[in-house]
């Protein structure tokens, strides 16, 4: 496997899963920059609704003429922030990026099961990201119907400016994204199934691999309905069909000729994907944190087998709870009660999983390095995000909270915060493996403190904006008397958001500086046990010299070997007793 390739085959059109993983990560981080700047614009508008930002009027003459954002630009920004962060940041960096990088290494394979498909999936993903960004520049601006793209708003071009060309581009980009994500998911599932090293039984897999495996299966099952829905939406928009458009609609005094469609059909199809999708994002975050934690507690994770079963249970349950996004949509209220009860069933495996993570700290000899701090942050946000879910999964409580900032706060804690902190934790943890250099510890700590505290403040406070009845996707809270008292809270949230965004510069500087100047990393700088730490940093093409033979599970910490207080998965049983 030591083929020599030229620059282009090695770094651009590479079929090496490590290169592709890093390509995904870098693409996703650039998209995060875009998504983060959009978030900054949102917070500028909500914190200082009438302020004239003159320098921004020069940068964005169409969106912010005279320095105040127009409502059409605001809605486009909100829509694109959500779309980019969910599909083009977290999905790329955490799911496809680290999934690609880690899964073959951790199962002991030389590459993914289908290396060419893998390359194809990355380049389609790259194209999807480019197309999505380009939609800002078309007539009417980027899509503005929210990342959930509910028709008729998203289906009728006169309903909102973003539903002109922008929404079409949005659909096309999503189609590319889904194609790419399906290939990548298929590859991960096939890799875990078929190319594990000898001795790597399923119940010896690191939780990282388990989480990617289950997330990928979920993605494969859940994305097809969205694909179908996107095709129908495209047909409704351009070819006169009426999948989502009922009879008798009048928009802007124009009578539409559509008959017989149902706007609710989109919501069902969208959330049939949408709910599993949040687990596609969050399970890898939890899996990664579960593997980082024992390296810094120096003892095995608590309840490994139970955690695996919990991941599977959550995966199954996530497919049958989508209706909890639709309690007040006009769907039958009786189904509302069903969806409440099954949704809250998810708390059972998730609680056990979360407590297993917490109990992994029990009896620990804690070493607070940067990846560990971020993993503890993951645990904390997973707790508070999960608690918010108890409110929203409950139909009766949701009647007041639906479509308010409570929802915004909740999902940012989960698919915003848990995933963001896990992404950072993963970058600090595996950076030495990827690039052969350590990241700076002091800057990393500074980054943690200035990320966790503002993040928690922002989204914790947003829950209470929701309790006060502040609806989401509002351009300003100035039109209502009952929302006047949210003014000060929005200001604090916006200030915290500015700190959060600025703090990411520390990360960017650390990342770039460490690439070139970081301390050179050994093969196993953290004393961790999984297979990627048995090969040099960065690993050579083909990963392993001799194929590894796995002798034990992934959490053999707290045993004495020549390496220290741990045994990597290849250490035979004669040297240290095998726990699993």
């Amino acid at each position, binding site marked *: 496997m030591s083929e020599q390739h030229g620059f282009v085959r090695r770094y651009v059109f590479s079929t090496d899963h490590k290169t592709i993983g890093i390509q995904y990560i870098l693409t996703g981080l650039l998209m995060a920059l875009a998504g983060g700047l959009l978030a900054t614009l949102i917070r500028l508008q909500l914190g200082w609704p009438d302020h004239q930002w003159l320098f921004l009027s020069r940068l964005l003459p169409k969106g912010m003429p005279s320095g105040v954002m127009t*409502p059409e630009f605001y809605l486009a920004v909100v829509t694109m922030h959500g779309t980019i962060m969910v599909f083009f940041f977290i999905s790329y960096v955490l799911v496809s990026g680290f999934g690609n990088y880690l899964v073959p290494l951790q199962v002991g394979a030389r590459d993914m099961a289908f290396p060419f498909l893998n390359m194809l999936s990355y380049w389609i993903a790259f194209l999807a990201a480019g197309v999505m960004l380009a939609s800002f520049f078309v007539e009417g601006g980027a899509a503005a*119907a929210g990342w959930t793209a509910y028709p008729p708003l998203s289906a009728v071009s006169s*309903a*909102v400016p973003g539903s002109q060309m922008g929404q079409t581009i949005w659909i096309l980009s999503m189609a590319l994204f889904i194609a790419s994500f399906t290939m990548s998911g298929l590859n991960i599932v096939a890799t875990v199934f078929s190319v594990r090293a000898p001795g790597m039984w399923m119940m010896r897999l690191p939780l990282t691999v388990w989480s990617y495996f289950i997330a990928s299966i979920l993605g494969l099952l859940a994305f097809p309905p969205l694909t179908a829905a996107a095709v129908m939406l495209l047909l409704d928009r351009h070819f006169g069909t009426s999948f989502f458009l*009922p*009879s*008798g*609609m*009048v*928009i802007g005094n124009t*009578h539409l000729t559509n008959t017989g469609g149902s*706007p609710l059909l989109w919501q069902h199809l969208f959330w049939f994907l949408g709910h599993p999708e949040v687990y596609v994002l969050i399970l890898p975050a939890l899996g990664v944190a579960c593997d980082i934690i024992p390296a810094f*507690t*120096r*003892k095995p994770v608590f309840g490994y087998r139970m955690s695996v079963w919990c991941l599977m249970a959550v995966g199954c349950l996530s497919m049958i709870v989508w209706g909890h996004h639709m309690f007040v*949509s006009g769907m039958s*209220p009786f189904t509302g009660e069903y969806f409440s009860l099954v949704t*809250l069933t998810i*708390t*059972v*495996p998730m*609680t056990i999983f979360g*407590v297993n993570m*917490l109990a992994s*700290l*029990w*009896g*620990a*000899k*804690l*070493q*607070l390095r940067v990846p560990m701090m971020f993993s*503890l942050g993951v645990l904390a946000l997973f*707790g508070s995000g999960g608690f918010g879910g108890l409110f929203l*999964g*409950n*139909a*009766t*409580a949701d*009647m*007041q909270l639906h*479509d308010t900032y409570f929802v915004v706060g909740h999902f940012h804690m989960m698919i915003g915060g848990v995933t963001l902190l896990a992404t950072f934790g993963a970058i600090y943890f595996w950076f030495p493996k990827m690039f052969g250099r350590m990241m700076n510890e002091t800057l990393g700590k500074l980054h943690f403190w200035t990320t966790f505290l503002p993040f928690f403040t922002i989204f914790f406070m947003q829950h*209470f904006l929701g*309790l*006060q*009845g502040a*609806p989401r996707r*509002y351009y*300003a809270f100035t*039109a*209502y*008397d*009952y929302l006047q008292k949210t003014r000060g809270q929005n200001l604090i949230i916006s200030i915290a958001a500015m700190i959060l965004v600025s703090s990411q510069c520390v990360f960017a500087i650390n990342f770039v500086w460490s690439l070139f100047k970081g301390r050179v990393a*050994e093969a*196993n700088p953290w*004393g961790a046990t999984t297979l990627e730490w048995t090969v040099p940093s960065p690993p050579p093409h083909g990963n392993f010299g001799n194929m590894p033979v796995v002798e034990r599970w992934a959490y053999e*910490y*707290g045993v004495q070997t020549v*390496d*220290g207080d741990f045994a990597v998965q290849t250490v035979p049983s004669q040297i240290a007793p095998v726990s699993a």
Partner: protein
Amino acid sequence: MPSPDSHAHPRFARHATLLALMFAATGIGGVVYGARAWMPELASRHGAGIDSMLTYLLVSVGGLFLVSYLALAYFIWRGGRRTAIGPRFASRRTERALSIALGVGMAIIAEGGVLAIGMPVWAEYFDAAPPADAIVIDVTAQQFMWNVRYPGPDGVFGRTEPRLIDDTTNPIGMDRTDPAGKDDIITLNEITVPFGRAVRIRLHSKDVIHSFFLPNFRVKQDAVPGMTPEVVFFPTKTGHFEIACAELCGLAHYRMRGFFNVVPPADFDTWLHKQQESQ
């Protein structure tokens, strides 16, 4: 392979204390911040049930949140001081007992809340037959206003036809040939109801999805084109309240504001009469 820092380092201990304090402060601070009356003033009968559901959740979840953040803080503080790890494994029994206890505990808190508090409220709100004396109002949402219609003295709404809609002359498409519609009363962005009677609102939408949100009445229902969902509730306070749109409907979504007035029955008759005059 060189071993990583294998003994407790004072650096880790100091840092652990700091991080533990931060998580403890976050947990305590969160509960202190949350423990106040956040909800808008309550003005409906079923809303009391929704509020008790929310109170139950705020109290139980607040407790869980505090306990878990303090536990996290303790583990971090304690772990930073250890020079050797504790037992590597808990016994199978401990693991199983912990999982069962927590799973069942959470199920009781989460599902118990739905079954004991949530379902009765849900049933009262959706399932009870609307009282015969309820005042029936037709609300048609459009970008970006609420068209309100009362049936008038005959108590019967006139026919409407979407093809008759004209935004300036006939915003909800009234069929002028229908005698039942002659006395219908139409207002814009303003609903007034008499205190002491249930309110029954039939929701329509002409264009995109809107959501009829009365924060004070704990009422929220999407208005979906092609559907006619109904909401029934019983005001318990007189006063002037606001209607908000809670589903993204376009550019002026954030100011699709309406007014909901609950007035004494005598004032209602006067108001209705005045509206009829001005039709």
